C-alpha cells in the first residue's frame, strides 16, 4: 500500500459498519465478504480488542470555547453520550483515550495542548471539533492557531461553528467505524512521534 496517510488509501468509504441491516459496504464488496479478514490480515483477537476499545473510549475534558458548551450538552439527557460508553469525561490525560479539541486554540494554549496530547497513553485519537479547531475558523489573525493539526495529528475534523451535538456524535461514530475497520490512529498513519 502506498504511504498510508489518507483514509482513502485504506479504501474506507465511511459506510456505516455499525448499522447491521445496511448490507456490505463497497469496501467489503471489493474484497468479497468471505476473505475480508484474510485480506486485512487481522486476527479475531485483534478485532475483539478493537471492538472493546471503541466501546469505552473515554474523552478528555478539553473544553476551550463555544464548542465546549455544545460538547457539554452532548452529555446531557437528550443526546446522551453514555450510549457509546463515553460519558465519563476524564480530566487527566492519563485516563483519557480521546482528545476532543473543542474550541479555538490560542498560541498561548498550544504548548499545554501538545503536552496533554503527549501525556495521553496509546491508543489515542484526536477530534478537532468545530471550524476553529479544524482550521482557525473565522479568526484568521495573530492569536489563533490556524488548525490544530499543526501541533497534534487529528483523526476526525468536524465542521460547523459550533457543531450541533448530532454533528459531534456523527464524528464519534465515524471514528469508531474507522477504528473497527482497522485504520490505525492518526499518530501512526502520519508517523508522528507520540
Amino acid at each position, binding site marked *: 500500500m502506498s504511504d498510508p496517510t489518507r483514509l482513502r488509501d485504506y479504501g474506507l468509504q465511511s459506510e456505516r459498519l455499525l448499522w447491521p441491516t445496511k448490507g456490505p459496504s463497497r469496501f467489503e464488496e471489493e474484497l468479497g465478504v468471505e476473505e475480508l479478514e484474510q485480506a486485512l490480515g487481522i486476527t479475531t483477537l485483534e478485532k475483539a480488542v478493537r471492538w472493546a476499545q471503541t466501546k469505552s473510549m473515554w474523552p*478528555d475534558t478539553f473544553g*476551550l*470555547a463555544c464548542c465546549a458548551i*455544545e460538547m457539554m*450538552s452532548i452529555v446531557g439527557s437528550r443526546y446522551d453520550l453514555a450510549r457509546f460508553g463515553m460519558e465519563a469525561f476524564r*480530566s487527566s490525560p492519563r485516563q483519557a483515550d480521546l482528545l476532543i479539541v473543542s474550541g479555538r486554540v490560542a498560541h498561548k494554549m498550544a504548548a499545554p495542548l501538545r503536552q496533554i496530547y503527549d501525556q495521553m497513553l496509546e491508543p489515542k485519537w484526536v477530534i478537532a471539533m468545530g471550524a476553529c479547531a479544524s482550521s482557525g475558523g*473565522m479568526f484568521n*489573525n495573530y*492569536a489563533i492557531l490556524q488548525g490544530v493539526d499543526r501541533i497534534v495529528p487529528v483523526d476526525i475534523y468536524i465542521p460547523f461553528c459550533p457543531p450541533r451535538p448530532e454533528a459531534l456524535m456523527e464524528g464519534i461514530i465515524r471514528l469508531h467505524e474507522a477504528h473497527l475497520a482497522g485504520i490505525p490512529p492518526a499518530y501512526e498513519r502520519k508517523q508522528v512521534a507520540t
Partner: protein
Amino acid sequence: MSTTLRHVGRTRRWPVVGDAIYDGSRIPARVPTVLDVPPHLRDTDDVLTVNFGPNHPSTHGVLRLIVDLDGEEVVGLSAVVGYLHTGFEKNMEQKTWWKAITYPERIDYVGYQNNELVFVLAIEKLLDIEVPEKATWTRMLLCELNRIHSHLVFLGTSALELGAISMFWYCFRERENILDLFELVAGQRMHTRYFQAGGLAEDIPIGFFPEARKFVENMPSSLDDYLTLLDRNKIWLERTQGVGLLSSDDAIALGQTGPVLRASGVDWDLRRDQPYLAYEQVDFRVPVYTGGDVYDRYRVRMDEMAESVKIARQCVDRLERMEGEPWIADDRKVVLPPREELHTSMESLIHHFKIVTEGYRVPAGEVYVAIESPRGESGCYVVSDGGPRPWRVHFRAPSFAALQATATCSQNTLIADLIAIVGSLDAVMGDTDR
C-alpha cells in the same frame, strides 16, 4: 420601581495603594488581583505551589490559577489569563459592519445574544436609526431567554463541581428547551446572528409563540424543583455559605457588576437603572442579597431566572399582538431592501449592491453602550471614521472584572472552596480573554 439606592453613594476617601485600600477592605494591598503569601510563610518549605491550570475540570474554561497552599489552606493566589485570547478586536477592524456583527457572539459564548445586542445597539446609536417596536421586544425576549440559558449553564456546572451531579442533567434538560426556541426563531442553537443594525434578520416564524408560551408556562415549576433540590441540601449550604466573601465596597472598588454586585448588597441593575430596549415598560423585580458569599450569588441568579421568566411571559404576550408589524427599519442606506423589490425598483438594486459589496457606512464618532448581560454590565466602545469598517471596537467584559475578585474572595479559604468561588464568579473565559 425602587429608585432610591440603599447601599450606594458612600464614596470613601481611599488612601494610596500600599497600606490597605481603605479601612475594612479585603483587597490585597500590593497588587489588587494577586494574593501574596504572608511574610512568615514566604520562603519556608511549607508552601506548596499548585497550578490550577488551563486544563482543569473546575475552572470553567482555560483559566489558570497559581495557588500557594499551606496544607489545604489557600495562602497565595494569582490568576493567569490569556489562554483563549482570540484577537476579536483586531479581526473586527478588518471586517465591514455587517460582517463584524457575527464576531461578538463568540466573545461571551454563554450569553451570546446579549453580546450581539450590545454591538448592534452601539451601531444603531451611531447610525441614529429608529428600530421598530417588534424588533425591540423580540430582542428583549431572546436576551431574557439567553439569561435563563446562561444561569442554567452556571447552575449546572457549579453544582456539578460541588458534587450535586444530577443538577447538571436537570439544568441541561431545560437548556435544551431554550435552544429549541432559538433554533425555531433563528435557525441555529447557538450564535444565532439574528440581530441586524436596524432590527432583526428575519421575521418571527409562525410556530414560535405557542412553543415560547409552553416554555414560559412550565419553567417556573422546574425552577422550584432546583430550589427544593439544593436549598435545603446540607452539603450545598455548608460548601457555599460564608465562602468567598466580597463586601459591597470591595465589589464597587473592583468594578464588579451584575449578580456578583447584587449579591454583595449593591442594588444596581442596568435594566432598571439605565433602561435600554423596552425594559421600562416591563415589570420585574431586581433581587439583591447582602451576604456577598457564594450562596448569595447562587440565590441572586436563581431569583433572576424567575424574574426573566416573568419578563419573557410579558414579552410573548406583547409580541403576539404585534402580528404583522415591520421587524426591521426601512432606511435603505443601512437595511437590505426586500428581494422582490429588486426586480422592480432601480434604487433598491443600487442600495442592495452598495450594502452587499461595500457595507453600509456608519457616521464618524465614538460611542459606549452598556447593557445588563447575564454576567454583569457588558459594554461596547465603538469608534467609527465614517467608513464601512469599524475603526476600533472594545468590549467591556464582565467576566474580566469578575476574575479580578478571585484574590479578594479566596482569602483564608480552603482549596475546595476555591472551586466554589471560581464557579460562583461565573466567568466565561472567552469573555475574559477576548
